[in-house]
Protein backbone atom coordinates (compact mmCIF):
# COMPACT_ATOMS: atom_id res chain seq x y z
CA UNK A 1 0.00 0.00 0.00
CA UNK A 2 1.33 3.37 -0.90
CA UNK A 3 0.52 5.04 2.39
CA UNK A 4 2.44 2.58 4.51
CA UNK A 5 5.57 2.65 2.43
CA UNK A 6 6.02 6.41 2.34
CA UNK A 7 8.59 7.76 4.72
CA UNK A 8 6.17 9.57 6.93
CA UNK A 9 3.88 6.57 6.96
CA UNK A 10 6.66 4.43 8.32
CA UNK A 11 7.54 7.03 10.93
CA UNK A 12 3.96 7.27 12.07
CA UNK A 13 3.75 3.53 12.27
CA UNK A 14 6.89 3.44 14.39
CA UNK A 15 5.62 6.12 16.74
CA UNK A 16 2.33 4.35 17.21
CA UNK A 17 4.07 1.05 17.71
CA UNK A 18 6.34 2.49 20.37
CA UNK A 19 3.48 4.20 22.15
CA UNK A 20 1.36 1.08 22.19
CA UNK A 21 4.18 -1.03 23.55
CA UNK A 22 5.14 1.34 26.32
CA UNK A 23 1.54 2.07 27.25
CA UNK A 24 1.61 -0.69 29.78
CA UNK A 25 4.64 0.78 31.48
CA UNK A 26 3.03 4.18 31.58
CA UNK A 27 -0.30 3.07 32.90
CA UNK A 28 0.62 0.29 35.25
CA UNK A 29 3.20 0.05 37.97
CA UNK A 30 2.66 3.58 39.07
CA UNK A 31 3.67 5.12 35.78
CA UNK A 32 2.91 8.65 34.70
CA UNK A 33 -0.40 7.64 33.17
CA UNK A 34 -2.25 7.65 29.90
CA UNK A 35 -2.36 11.42 29.66
CA UNK A 36 1.40 11.73 29.67
CA UNK A 37 1.63 9.04 27.05
CA UNK A 38 -0.80 10.88 24.83
CA UNK A 39 1.06 14.07 25.38
CA UNK A 40 4.29 12.34 24.42
CA UNK A 41 2.77 11.07 21.23
CA UNK A 42 1.31 14.44 20.43
CA UNK A 43 4.50 16.33 21.06
CA UNK A 44 6.50 13.93 18.92
CA UNK A 45 4.14 14.54 16.04
CA UNK A 46 4.30 18.24 16.77
CA UNK A 47 8.07 18.32 16.54
CA UNK A 48 7.87 16.27 13.43
CA UNK A 49 5.67 18.64 11.52
CA UNK A 50 7.18 21.80 12.93
CA UNK A 51 10.54 20.89 11.47
CA UNK A 52 9.01 20.37 8.08
CA UNK A 53 7.00 23.56 8.30
CA UNK A 54 10.09 25.53 9.08
CA UNK A 55 11.76 23.98 6.05
CA UNK A 56 8.96 25.04 3.78
CA UNK A 57 8.91 28.55 5.24
CA UNK A 58 12.63 28.93 4.77
CA UNK A 59 12.40 27.82 1.19
CA UNK A 60 9.65 30.32 0.54
CA UNK A 61 11.64 33.08 2.16
CA UNK A 62 14.66 32.16 0.11
CA UNK A 63 12.57 32.51 -3.01
CA UNK A 64 12.98 28.91 -3.97
CA UNK A 65 9.28 28.34 -3.63
CA UNK A 66 6.85 30.89 -4.96
CA UNK A 67 4.17 29.38 -2.83
CA UNK A 68 3.26 26.23 -1.07
CA UNK A 69 3.73 23.17 -3.20
CA UNK A 70 0.54 21.69 -4.52
CA UNK A 71 -0.10 18.32 -3.12
CA UNK A 72 -1.15 15.57 -5.45
CA UNK A 73 -4.45 13.91 -4.71
CA UNK A 74 -2.76 10.55 -4.27
CA UNK A 75 -1.08 11.76 -1.16
CA UNK A 76 -4.25 12.54 0.65
CA UNK A 77 -4.97 9.90 3.18
CA UNK A 78 -8.06 7.79 2.94
CA UNK A 79 -10.90 9.04 5.03
CA UNK A 80 -10.90 7.70 8.47
CA UNK A 81 -7.33 6.61 8.27
CA UNK A 82 -4.43 8.27 10.01
CA UNK A 83 -3.10 11.35 8.35
CA UNK A 84 0.02 10.33 6.47
CA UNK A 85 2.39 13.08 5.81
CA UNK A 86 5.11 12.80 3.28
CA UNK A 87 8.18 14.58 4.50
CA UNK A 88 9.56 14.75 1.04
CA UNK A 89 7.01 17.30 -0.05
CA UNK A 90 6.35 20.43 1.93
CA UNK A 91 3.02 20.24 3.60
CA UNK A 92 0.24 22.51 2.48
CA UNK A 93 -2.81 22.90 4.63
CA UNK A 94 -5.94 22.42 2.61
CA UNK A 95 -9.54 23.09 3.33
CA UNK A 96 -10.16 19.55 4.38
CA UNK A 97 -7.06 19.26 6.50
CA UNK A 98 -6.02 22.20 8.43
CA UNK A 99 -2.56 22.11 9.88
CA UNK A 100 -2.53 18.85 11.74
CA UNK A 101 -3.08 18.86 15.41
CA UNK A 102 -2.47 16.16 17.90
CA UNK A 103 -6.16 15.39 18.07
CA UNK A 104 -6.43 14.78 14.40
CA UNK A 105 -3.52 12.47 14.07
CA UNK A 106 -4.70 9.64 16.22
CA UNK A 107 -7.98 8.40 17.64
CA UNK A 108 -9.24 10.12 20.72
CA UNK A 109 -8.29 8.42 23.92
CA UNK A 110 -10.58 8.03 26.92
CA UNK A 111 -8.75 10.80 28.68
CA UNK A 112 -8.68 14.20 27.12
CA UNK A 113 -5.50 14.76 25.25
CA UNK A 114 -3.79 17.84 26.55
CA UNK A 115 -3.14 19.68 23.36
CA UNK A 116 0.18 21.36 22.95
CA UNK A 117 0.33 24.63 21.12
CA UNK A 118 -1.34 23.83 17.83
CA UNK A 119 0.48 24.35 14.63
CA UNK A 120 -0.31 27.78 13.34
CA UNK A 121 -1.59 28.25 9.87
CA UNK A 122 0.57 29.46 7.07
CA UNK A 123 -0.04 33.05 8.03
CA UNK A 124 1.44 32.62 11.44
CA UNK A 125 4.69 30.99 10.63
CA UNK A 126 6.69 33.55 12.46
CA UNK A 127 5.18 32.53 15.76
CA UNK A 128 6.77 29.14 15.44
CA UNK A 129 10.07 30.55 16.35
CA UNK A 130 8.77 31.65 19.67
CA UNK A 131 7.64 28.25 20.71
CA UNK A 132 9.46 27.40 23.88
CA UNK A 133 10.37 23.97 22.81
CA UNK A 134 14.03 24.51 22.35
CA UNK A 135 13.51 26.17 19.03
CA UNK A 136 17.18 26.81 18.88
CA UNK A 137 17.54 23.13 18.39
CA UNK A 138 15.91 23.31 15.02
CA UNK A 139 17.87 25.62 12.84
CA UNK A 140 17.91 25.18 9.13
CA UNK A 141 20.10 22.27 8.24
CA UNK A 142 22.57 24.59 6.65
CA UNK A 143 23.19 26.56 9.81
CA UNK A 144 26.50 26.08 11.45
CA UNK A 145 26.55 25.38 15.10
CA UNK A 146 29.20 26.39 17.47
CA UNK A 147 28.70 23.97 20.26
CA UNK A 148 29.44 20.36 19.99
CA UNK A 149 29.48 17.73 22.58
CA UNK A 150 31.23 14.63 21.70
CA UNK A 151 29.34 11.53 22.33
CA UNK A 152 30.90 9.44 23.89
CA UNK A 153 28.12 15.65 21.45
CA UNK A 154 24.05 20.03 18.69
CA UNK A 155 21.71 22.17 17.73
CA UNK A 156 22.09 20.35 14.52
CA UNK A 157 19.27 17.86 14.67
CA UNK A 158 21.67 15.04 14.13
CA UNK A 159 24.22 15.75 16.76
CA UNK A 160 22.31 16.63 19.85
CA UNK A 161 24.26 16.18 23.03
CA UNK A 162 23.12 13.27 25.12
CA UNK A 163 20.71 14.22 27.83
CA UNK A 164 22.04 14.11 31.36
CA UNK A 165 19.71 11.33 32.29
CA UNK A 166 20.79 9.09 29.45
CA UNK A 167 23.63 6.78 30.08
CA UNK A 168 26.68 8.85 29.13
CA UNK A 169 28.57 5.76 28.20
CA UNK A 170 26.17 4.73 25.47
CA UNK A 171 27.51 5.08 21.99
CA UNK A 172 24.93 5.39 19.27
CA UNK A 173 27.18 3.57 16.90
CA UNK A 174 27.53 0.49 19.02
CA UNK A 175 24.94 -2.19 19.48
CA UNK A 176 23.40 -1.79 22.86
CA UNK A 177 23.39 -4.78 25.13
CA UNK A 178 21.84 -4.49 28.55
CA UNK A 179 24.37 -4.50 31.29
CA UNK A 180 27.20 -5.78 29.23
CA UNK A 181 28.78 -2.46 28.47
CA UNK A 182 29.03 -1.48 32.09
CA UNK A 183 30.98 -4.58 32.99
CA UNK A 184 33.29 -4.15 30.06
CA UNK A 185 34.02 -0.57 30.77
CA UNK A 186 34.53 -1.07 34.45
CA UNK A 187 37.53 -3.29 34.09
CA UNK A 188 39.82 -1.15 31.97
CA UNK A 189 39.42 1.69 34.40
CA UNK A 190 40.37 -0.55 37.20
CA UNK A 191 43.50 -1.73 35.49
CA UNK A 192 44.50 1.77 34.67
CA UNK A 193 44.19 2.79 38.28
CA UNK A 194 46.30 -0.08 39.37
CA UNK A 195 49.05 0.73 36.94
CA UNK A 196 49.56 4.10 38.49
CA UNK A 197 50.62 2.54 41.74
CA UNK A 198 52.65 -0.38 40.57
CA UNK A 199 53.74 0.07 37.02
CA UNK A 200 55.93 -2.95 36.75
CA UNK A 201 53.89 -5.62 38.40
CA UNK A 202 51.06 -5.91 35.89
CA UNK A 203 47.57 -6.74 36.96
CA UNK A 204 46.94 -6.87 40.62
CA UNK A 205 44.01 -6.44 42.88
CA UNK A 206 43.50 -3.08 44.35
CA UNK A 207 43.84 -4.34 47.88
CA UNK A 208 47.30 -5.66 47.30
CA UNK A 209 48.59 -2.46 45.82
CA UNK A 210 47.13 -0.34 48.55
CA UNK A 211 48.54 -2.68 51.16
CA UNK A 212 51.92 -2.30 49.64
CA UNK A 213 51.62 1.40 49.86
CA UNK A 214 50.52 1.33 53.43
CA UNK A 215 53.46 -0.80 54.44
CA UNK A 216 55.66 2.18 53.89
CA UNK A 217 57.54 0.79 50.96
CA UNK A 218 58.76 3.36 48.59
CA UNK A 219 56.65 3.64 45.52
CA UNK A 220 58.54 4.70 42.46
CA UNK A 221 56.90 7.67 40.92
CA UNK A 222 58.88 8.01 37.78
CA UNK A 223 57.62 7.25 34.40
CA UNK A 224 59.29 4.48 32.45
CA UNK A 225 61.96 2.13 33.66
CA UNK A 226 63.01 3.13 37.10
CA UNK A 227 66.50 1.85 36.91
CA UNK A 228 68.24 4.60 38.78
CA UNK A 229 66.81 5.41 42.16
CA UNK A 230 68.60 8.34 43.64
CA UNK A 231 69.58 8.28 47.26
CA UNK A 232 69.87 11.48 49.13
CA UNK A 233 72.01 12.11 52.10
CA UNK A 234 72.34 15.25 54.07
CA UNK A 235 75.91 16.18 54.78
CA UNK A 236 76.33 19.27 56.77
CA UNK A 237 74.60 22.10 55.07
CA UNK A 238 74.65 20.53 51.69
CA UNK A 239 72.37 18.03 50.26
CA UNK A 240 74.23 15.48 48.25
CA UNK A 241 72.64 13.10 45.92
CA UNK A 242 74.28 10.06 44.55
CA UNK A 243 72.79 7.87 41.95
CA UNK A 244 72.74 4.14 42.19
CA UNK A 245 72.67 2.97 38.67
CA UNK A 246 74.67 2.73 35.57
CA UNK A 247 76.50 5.92 36.04
CA UNK A 248 77.62 7.66 39.12
CA UNK A 249 77.70 11.35 39.30
CA UNK A 250 80.85 12.64 40.87
CA UNK A 251 79.90 14.07 44.17
CA UNK A 252 82.22 16.94 43.69
CA UNK A 253 79.99 18.47 41.17
CA UNK A 254 77.05 18.48 43.42
CA UNK A 255 78.48 19.00 46.86
CA UNK A 256 81.31 21.27 45.99
CA UNK A 257 79.48 24.48 46.55
CA UNK A 258 76.89 25.41 49.04
CA UNK A 259 75.08 27.33 46.38
CA UNK A 260 73.48 25.46 43.60
CA UNK A 261 73.44 27.26 40.31
CA UNK A 262 69.98 28.42 39.60
CA UNK A 263 70.36 29.72 36.14
CA UNK A 264 67.59 28.87 33.87
CA UNK A 265 68.32 27.94 30.30
CA UNK A 266 71.07 25.85 28.76
CA UNK A 267 73.03 23.67 31.15
CA UNK A 268 76.57 24.65 32.04
CA UNK A 269 79.28 22.45 30.60
CA UNK A 270 80.01 20.20 33.54
CA UNK A 271 76.53 18.86 33.27
CA UNK A 272 76.61 18.11 29.60
CA UNK A 273 77.96 14.67 30.18
CA UNK A 274 75.17 13.88 32.51
CA UNK A 275 72.59 15.06 30.13
CA UNK A 276 73.95 13.19 27.22
CA UNK A 277 73.57 9.90 29.00
CA UNK A 278 70.05 8.73 28.50
CA UNK A 279 69.37 6.82 31.68
CA UNK A 280 70.63 9.34 34.11
CA UNK A 281 68.30 11.43 36.18
CA UNK A 282 70.41 14.53 36.15
CA UNK A 283 70.11 16.73 39.12
CA UNK A 284 69.52 20.16 37.84
CA UNK A 285 66.73 22.08 39.39
CA UNK A 286 67.08 25.73 38.70
CA UNK A 287 63.79 26.45 40.29
CA UNK A 288 64.61 24.77 43.53
CA UNK A 289 66.43 26.69 46.21
CA UNK A 290 67.90 24.34 48.74
CA UNK A 291 69.62 27.12 50.58
CA UNK A 292 66.38 28.06 52.09
CA UNK A 293 66.70 25.22 54.49
CA UNK A 294 64.27 23.00 52.87
CA UNK A 295 64.98 19.39 53.27
CA UNK A 296 62.81 17.45 50.96
CA UNK A 297 62.19 13.85 51.82
CA UNK A 298 64.31 11.48 49.85
CA UNK A 299 61.46 10.18 47.87
CA UNK A 300 60.30 13.56 46.80
CA UNK A 301 63.43 14.21 44.85
CA UNK A 302 62.43 11.54 42.50
CA UNK A 303 59.62 13.66 41.19
CA UNK A 304 62.15 15.30 39.24
CA UNK A 305 62.11 18.14 37.01
CA UNK A 306 65.45 17.68 35.53
CA UNK A 307 63.70 14.91 33.82
CA UNK A 308 60.99 17.36 33.01
CA UNK A 309 63.46 19.97 31.91
CA UNK A 310 65.17 17.47 29.74
CA UNK A 311 61.89 16.31 28.42
CA UNK A 312 60.83 19.83 27.68
CA UNK A 313 63.79 20.26 25.43
CA UNK A 314 63.03 17.00 23.77
CA UNK A 315 59.37 17.85 23.46
CA UNK A 316 60.12 21.13 21.79
CA UNK A 317 62.17 19.33 19.22
CA UNK A 318 59.49 16.77 18.80
CA UNK A 319 56.86 19.40 18.38
CA UNK A 320 58.84 21.00 15.66
CA UNK A 321 59.38 17.71 13.96
CA UNK A 322 55.82 16.54 14.30
CA UNK A 323 54.02 19.74 13.64
CA UNK A 324 52.89 18.79 10.17
CA UNK A 325 51.91 15.26 10.97
CA UNK A 326 48.24 15.93 11.32
CA UNK A 327 46.22 16.33 8.24
CA UNK A 328 44.45 19.57 9.04
CA UNK A 329 42.12 19.20 6.15
CA UNK A 330 41.03 15.83 7.39
CA UNK A 331 40.65 17.07 10.93
CA UNK A 332 38.54 19.99 9.82
CA UNK A 333 36.51 17.70 7.70
CA UNK A 334 35.91 15.29 10.51
CA UNK A 335 35.05 17.91 13.05
CA UNK A 336 32.99 19.77 10.53
CA UNK A 337 31.13 16.61 9.76
CA UNK A 338 30.42 15.98 13.37
CA UNK A 339 29.17 19.42 13.99
CA UNK A 340 27.03 19.89 10.95
CA UNK A 341 26.17 16.64 9.28
CA UNK A 342 23.84 17.70 6.57
CA UNK A 343 23.76 14.42 4.75
CA UNK A 344 23.76 11.25 6.75
CA UNK A 345 23.03 7.62 6.12
CA UNK A 346 22.31 5.31 9.04
CA UNK A 347 22.11 1.65 8.18
CA UNK A 348 23.24 -1.87 8.88
CA UNK A 349 25.83 -3.53 6.73
CA UNK A 350 25.73 -7.08 5.42
CA UNK A 351 29.09 -7.10 3.76
CA UNK A 352 31.89 -4.67 3.06
CA UNK A 353 34.54 -5.77 0.59
CA UNK A 354 37.42 -4.13 -1.13
CA UNK A 355 39.34 -5.08 -4.23
CA UNK A 356 42.43 -2.93 -4.56
CA UNK A 357 40.93 0.50 -4.48
CA UNK A 358 37.36 -0.42 -5.23
CA UNK A 359 35.01 -0.83 -2.31
CA UNK A 360 31.69 -2.56 -2.34
CA UNK A 361 29.27 -2.23 0.55
CA UNK A 362 26.00 -4.05 0.95
CA UNK A 363 23.85 -2.09 3.35
CA UNK A 364 20.32 -2.72 4.48
CA UNK A 365 17.48 -1.29 6.52
CA UNK A 366 18.61 2.25 6.60
CA UNK A 367 17.56 5.85 6.81
CA UNK A 368 19.10 8.47 4.58
CA UNK A 369 18.85 12.15 5.27
CA UNK A 370 19.92 13.84 2.07
CA UNK A 371 19.15 17.30 0.77
CA UNK A 372 16.71 17.81 3.62
CA UNK A 373 14.81 14.72 2.69
CA UNK A 374 14.40 11.47 4.51
CA UNK A 375 14.61 8.35 2.42
CA UNK A 376 14.23 4.90 3.84
CA UNK A 377 15.67 1.90 2.11
CA UNK A 378 15.74 -1.82 2.40
CA UNK A 379 18.92 -2.38 0.43
CA UNK A 380 21.78 -0.24 -0.71
CA UNK A 381 24.72 -1.08 -2.89
CA UNK A 382 27.48 1.36 -2.24
CA UNK A 383 30.48 1.75 -4.53
CA UNK A 384 32.85 4.27 -3.09
CA UNK A 385 36.24 4.60 -4.64
CA UNK A 386 39.10 6.71 -3.45
CA UNK A 387 40.15 9.78 -5.30
CA UNK A 388 43.18 9.04 -7.38
CA UNK A 389 45.77 11.56 -8.09
CA UNK A 390 46.38 12.26 -11.74
CA UNK A 391 49.79 10.60 -11.69
CA UNK A 392 48.45 7.49 -10.06
CA UNK A 393 45.59 7.47 -12.52
CA UNK A 394 47.95 7.48 -15.50
CA UNK A 395 50.17 4.93 -13.82
CA UNK A 396 47.21 2.66 -13.38
CA UNK A 397 46.32 3.03 -17.03
CA UNK A 398 49.84 2.30 -18.16
CA UNK A 399 50.14 -0.76 -16.00
CA UNK A 400 46.83 -2.05 -17.19
CA UNK A 401 47.83 -1.63 -20.80
CA UNK A 402 51.16 -3.29 -20.22
CA UNK A 403 49.53 -6.34 -18.81
Amino acid at each position, binding site marked *: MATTTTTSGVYIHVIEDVVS*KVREEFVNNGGPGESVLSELQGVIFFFFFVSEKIWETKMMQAGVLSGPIERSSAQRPTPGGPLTHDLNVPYEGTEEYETPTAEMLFPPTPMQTPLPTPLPGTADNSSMYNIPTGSSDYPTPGTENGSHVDVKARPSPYM*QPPSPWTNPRLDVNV*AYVDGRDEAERGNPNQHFTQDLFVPSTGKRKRDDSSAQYQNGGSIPQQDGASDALPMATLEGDTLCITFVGDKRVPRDFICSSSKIPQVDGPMPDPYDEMLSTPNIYSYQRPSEDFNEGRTPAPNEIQTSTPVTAQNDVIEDDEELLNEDDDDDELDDLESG*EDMNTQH*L*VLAQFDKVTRTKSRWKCNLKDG*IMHINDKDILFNKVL*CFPFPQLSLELFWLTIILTLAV
Partner: protein
Amino acid sequence: MATFELYRRSTSGMCLTETLDEMVQSGTLSPELAIQVLVQFDKSMTEALESQVKTKVSIKGHLHTYRFCDNVWTFILQDAMFKSEDRQENVSQVKIVACDSKLLTQ
Protein backbone atom coordinates in the same frame (compact mmCIF):
# COMPACT_ATOMS: atom_id res chain seq x y z
CA MET B 1 18.20 -8.02 23.87
CA ALA B 2 20.63 -6.05 21.73
CA THR B 3 19.35 -3.00 19.93
CA PHE B 4 20.99 -0.53 17.61
CA GLU B 5 20.89 3.00 18.92
CA LEU B 6 21.87 4.05 15.48
CA TYR B 7 18.42 5.19 14.45
CA ARG B 8 18.14 7.66 17.30
CA ARG B 9 20.18 10.01 15.13
CA SER B 10 17.50 10.07 12.49
CA THR B 11 14.84 12.77 12.27
CA SER B 12 12.26 10.80 14.14
CA GLY B 13 14.77 9.60 16.68
CA MET B 14 15.86 13.14 17.38
CA CYS B 15 12.25 14.25 17.73
CA LEU B 16 11.65 11.51 20.23
CA THR B 17 14.82 12.28 22.14
CA GLU B 18 13.93 15.97 22.28
CA THR B 19 10.50 15.22 23.56
CA LEU B 20 11.66 12.79 26.17
CA ASP B 21 14.38 15.15 27.24
CA GLU B 22 11.91 17.91 27.90
CA MET B 23 9.56 15.65 29.75
CA VAL B 24 12.31 14.33 31.96
CA GLN B 25 13.58 17.79 32.72
CA SER B 26 10.14 18.97 33.60
CA GLY B 27 9.69 15.95 35.83
CA THR B 28 6.80 14.49 33.90
CA LEU B 29 8.70 11.37 33.10
CA SER B 30 11.32 9.38 34.92
CA PRO B 31 14.66 8.83 33.20
CA GLU B 32 14.30 5.07 33.43
CA LEU B 33 11.01 5.15 31.62
CA ALA B 34 12.43 7.46 29.00
CA ILE B 35 15.26 5.02 28.35
CA GLN B 36 12.71 2.23 28.01
CA VAL B 37 10.88 4.28 25.43
CA LEU B 38 14.09 4.83 23.49
CA VAL B 39 14.94 1.15 23.55
CA GLN B 40 11.46 0.34 22.31
CA PHE B 41 11.95 2.93 19.59
CA ASP B 42 15.13 1.16 18.50
CA LYS B 43 13.30 -2.12 18.24
CA SER B 44 10.27 -0.70 16.47
CA MET B 45 12.35 1.23 13.98
CA THR B 46 14.51 -1.78 13.15
CA GLU B 47 11.45 -3.93 12.68
CA ALA B 48 9.67 -1.33 10.57
CA LEU B 49 12.63 -0.86 8.27
CA GLU B 50 12.87 -4.57 7.81
CA SER B 51 9.25 -5.25 7.11
CA GLN B 52 7.71 -2.13 5.63
CA VAL B 53 10.37 -0.70 3.37
CA LYS B 54 11.17 -2.17 0.00
CA THR B 55 13.26 0.55 -1.61
CA LYS B 56 16.60 -0.20 -3.19
CA VAL B 57 19.19 2.49 -3.58
CA SER B 58 22.59 2.66 -5.17
CA ILE B 59 25.29 5.03 -4.00
CA LYS B 60 28.44 5.96 -5.85
CA GLY B 61 31.06 8.43 -4.84
CA HIS B 62 34.62 9.22 -3.93
CA LEU B 63 35.67 7.61 -0.71
CA HIS B 64 37.31 10.22 1.42
CA THR B 65 37.50 8.36 4.72
CA TYR B 66 36.78 4.88 5.92
CA ARG B 67 36.83 3.61 9.45
CA PHE B 68 35.96 0.32 11.05
CA CYS B 69 35.84 0.37 14.81
CA ASP B 70 33.75 -1.60 17.28
CA ASN B 71 32.00 -3.35 14.42
CA VAL B 72 30.84 -0.07 12.99
CA TRP B 73 31.80 1.14 9.53
CA THR B 74 31.97 4.86 8.98
CA PHE B 75 32.49 6.23 5.50
CA ILE B 76 32.71 9.75 4.29
CA LEU B 77 31.91 10.09 0.63
CA GLN B 78 32.37 13.12 -1.55
CA ASP B 79 30.46 13.99 -4.68
CA ALA B 80 28.12 11.11 -4.09
CA MET B 81 25.22 10.15 -6.29
CA PHE B 82 22.19 8.39 -4.83
CA LYS B 83 20.01 6.51 -7.26
CA SER B 84 16.73 4.98 -6.31
CA GLU B 85 13.86 3.70 -8.38
CA ASP B 86 12.21 7.03 -8.94
CA ARG B 87 14.76 9.67 -8.11
CA GLN B 88 18.39 10.64 -8.09
CA GLU B 89 20.18 12.86 -5.61
CA ASN B 90 23.64 14.36 -5.66
CA VAL B 91 25.45 15.53 -2.58
CA SER B 92 28.86 17.03 -2.10
CA GLN B 93 29.55 15.13 1.09
CA VAL B 94 27.80 12.41 3.00
CA LYS B 95 28.58 10.39 6.06
CA ILE B 96 27.56 6.77 6.17
CA VAL B 97 27.38 4.95 9.48
CA ALA B 98 26.66 1.24 9.36
CA CYS B 99 26.43 -1.32 12.13
CA ASP B 100 26.91 -5.03 11.68
CA SER B 101 23.59 -6.64 10.96
CA LYS B 102 24.82 -9.96 12.31
CA LEU B 103 24.97 -8.56 15.82
CA LEU B 104 21.22 -8.41 16.00
CA THR B 105 20.73 -12.03 15.06
CA GLN B 106 23.18 -13.36 17.62
